[in-house]
């Protein structure tokens, strides 16, 4: 089973990389960009009997390693 995990910074957490990317986009004259937040995407293959079991496994993976829940949120998508 294929899954995608998206890890993003929580609201209110400063994102210097996102700010730098935003500034770079503006310097390329890409208009109308009002804000950039950078995150991470993990494409994962899971051996699981069903989507619920896969999601449980991936939730554990996120809590234990993939996200630092002090500053990051995660979203799990079973593809």
């Amino acid at each position, binding site marked *: 089973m294929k899954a995608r995990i998206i890890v993003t910074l929580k609201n209110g*957490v*400063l994102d*210097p*990389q996102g*700010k*730098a990317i935003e500034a770079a986009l503006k310097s390329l004259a890409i208009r109308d960009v009002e804000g950039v937040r950078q995150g991470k995407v993990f494409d994962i293959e899971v051996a699981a009997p069903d989507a619920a079991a896969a999601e449980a496994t991936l939730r554990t993976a996120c809590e*234990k*390693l*993939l996200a*630092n829940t*002090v*500053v990051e949120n995660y979203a799990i998508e079973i593809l």
Partner: protein
Amino acid sequence: MHAAVIIFPGSNRESDVVRALRRSGAQVSLVWHADHDLPTGTDLAVLPGGFSYGDYLRCGAIAGRAAAMDAVRAHAARGGLVLGICNGFQILCESGLLPGVLMRNVNRRFICHRQTLRVERTDTRFTSAYRAGQVIDVCVAHGEGNYFADPETLARIEGEGRVAFRYCDADGSITVEANRNGSLNAIAGVFSEKRNVLGMMPHPENFVEDLVGGTDGRGLFDSLAA
């Protein structure tokens, strides 16, 4: 004082911290990250600086889950001393031994310079050789040293007097200019609740010999070995 220095793939400051510990009179052994135990009689576990696992995923994230860290957690739970410097501080935060997280520096740059710190308290196993409020001159070298914690956690750390060091100017004043990585409350080092675990971004082990520019880092190792 028996110190065990844990080495991860990508640690690179272990020689300096071993030298600083021995200079202060500690006996030092080296422990590989995959080992499940610390040497019998270990008083102090040390996580040195460097770039464990190439800073993949997040700084200190993978090292924080290493086998040796289970032994370090057990050691800390028994009241054993733990010191994490630079990447070691990041590992302590990632492993749950210290609150908060070290984010990318606010100026987005790797910073590497001499840095004055204010010693916030001297009634601890790590800082007893310093004077209260003493300003010490050490070094920083990091890209992710911007200390962050949620407001409740930060209030608890401050309320419990768990800030070990703050970035300050030469007179000991906490200024925006002196806090170049943007850490909340200019926090450079944090203690655990029982003050047996210390994580700090600056490198006291760099400054233990006059030959290389200063000796203000000695106090930390002298305190531990006393």
